[in-house]
């Protein structure tokens, strides 16, 4: 199992991040906690993508394809929010 020490480290990091987000519920509810939860989720995603999905080794096109899905989802979210966030604002 020695050869997989690096993977174990990655797992430990992921579980630590999970513990962090779980622990955040002990604090009193506050607006920043949603952002914190999402930030931690993004970090977990990055760790899994880079190490478990081996994007660290596969550069170039594979990374572009990997990022394309998220980027396009961002386009949808931003433009739909441009409608919902400004309803009743300009009237």
């Amino acid at each position, binding site marked *: 199992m020695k050869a997989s020490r690096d993977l174990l480290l990655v797992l430990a990091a992921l579980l630590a991040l999970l513990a962090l987000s779980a622990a955040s519920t002990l604090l009193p509810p506050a607006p920043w906690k949603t952002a914190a939860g999402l930030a931690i989720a993004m970090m977990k995603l990055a760790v899994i993508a880079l190490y478990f999905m081996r994007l660290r080794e596969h550069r170039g*096109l594979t990374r572009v394809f990997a990022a*394309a*899905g998220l980027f*396009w989802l961002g*386009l*949808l979210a931003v*433009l*739909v929010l*441009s*409608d*919902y966030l*400004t*309803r*009743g*604002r*300009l*009237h």
Partner: protein
Amino acid sequence: MSADAPPPGYLAAEPGILAWFRTLDHKRIGLLYLFSITGFFMIGAAAAACMRVALLSPQGNLIVSDTYNRLFTLHGVVMIWFFLIPAVPNVLGNFVLPLAIGARDVAFPRLNLASWYIFMAGGALVLYAIAAGGVDTGWTFYTPYSSTYSNGHVMAMAAGVFIAGFSSIFTGLNFIVTIHRLRAPGLTWFRLPLFVWSLYATSIILVLATPILAITLFLMALERGLGVGVFDPKIGGDPLLFQHLFWFYSHPAVYVMILPGMGVVSELFACFARRRIFGYRVMACALLAIAALGFLVWGHHMFVSSQSLYAGLVFSLLSFLVSVPSAVKVFNWTATLHRGSIRLDTPMLYALGFVALFTIGGLTGLFLASLAVDVHVHGTYFIVAHFHYVMVGGMVMAYLGGIHYWWPKISGRLYPEWIARSSAVIIFLGFNLTFFPQFVLGYLGMPRRYAIYPPEFHTLNVCSTAGAAVLGLGYLLPLIYLPWSFFRGAPAGPNPWDATGLEWRTASPPPPHNFEETPVVTAEPYDYPPPP
């Protein structure tokens, strides 16, 4: 080789009918798609014919409103998802792409055949929904009508479209990987024919837009099935969210329909004007620009839907910007004819028809992108005329042009030139007589999806129906002479148009493995010798 029969090629390689259903050859899968979408085209066209005849009388004497509502839904769903979207990419794209990049086949042949079966499964479900009683929500399935109030077979049709969506996704995936990985040696990106560029841009849209359609239809069906959902206004849901998600797919989908047509037209202009496309790199980048910008403009379908004012301004601006690359392409096509040596064969007639009608379609798109005008003409026949000019005037003309251009390569035989030219002209005239009056109807305020209408719109509707008859005749002719030429046409030889492009460097019809030895590309695309 005997003069009167073309070499056997891929058509004779796998004998028997069953072979067609197990084939992994991209050329045969292209033909499978050709037969199936022609069938669906006829169903959709029949529905259109019934609607046009029904609209002959303002009071709707021929059929009741419910039947009319089911007819326009059938016409919309079948024509869009089972003819327009698969037409050029799945028929011409499947057949020509590997040949045009010098490959043996697409990257994932089994996935290619699977996508045809998925397409037919979706089609079967939609046909069941139609036969069992039809759907009256329109192809847009707007909630809450589709999810709560309609009593048609919405679930079956939505499931059929959901499944057919995966056929688009797998085709797009296949083409993207094929173009990246299987290009012949020396075939760099800027040596690719523009038809391959257009398939690449279309595949990006297919892959990135269709999943949103899948999830939108899934949520709508969930709401209809369980009686509760995310769009139901009675529990605080917002029907506009359905429109946002639906149009996020459906506007890029109209670019899925037009981009391959633009690619075909670029090939035809280059071949029949015997000149390199004017501004080749700008044309290629314009295709990608349209594909990318096409994702940002869907809000122009919702200018009057009580969407926020700010969003209306943003989407109107972006809609004007997405029209720029289309306009630039039209200018480049015209510039290509300059100092060319032009022959008006049938494909060229279709290409010129495309440019003329697409220009009108594009310009009327500017009317719709500008907010104040859209408030007046949204939901009227102006919109119906606009999208028919772009889709039928544009995409179908390009599709027919492409079919005639590559027909010698597909069948190894030539089609009868003069009948083909006359049918192209008939289609052009019939089309204009059908849809130009609808611009006027739209400005005068006749709403779309109306089974009965006030008498003052009567005359223009009669003209439109007359035009539809001529257009119908125009479409019937190729259905007759093309199959005839498949068996009886004169042998075409490898390069009847002596065009550039790798597909013309192999036999007609090509052998199953396309090329005896993989071609090496050294020249720039469309490097026709300067005219004498």
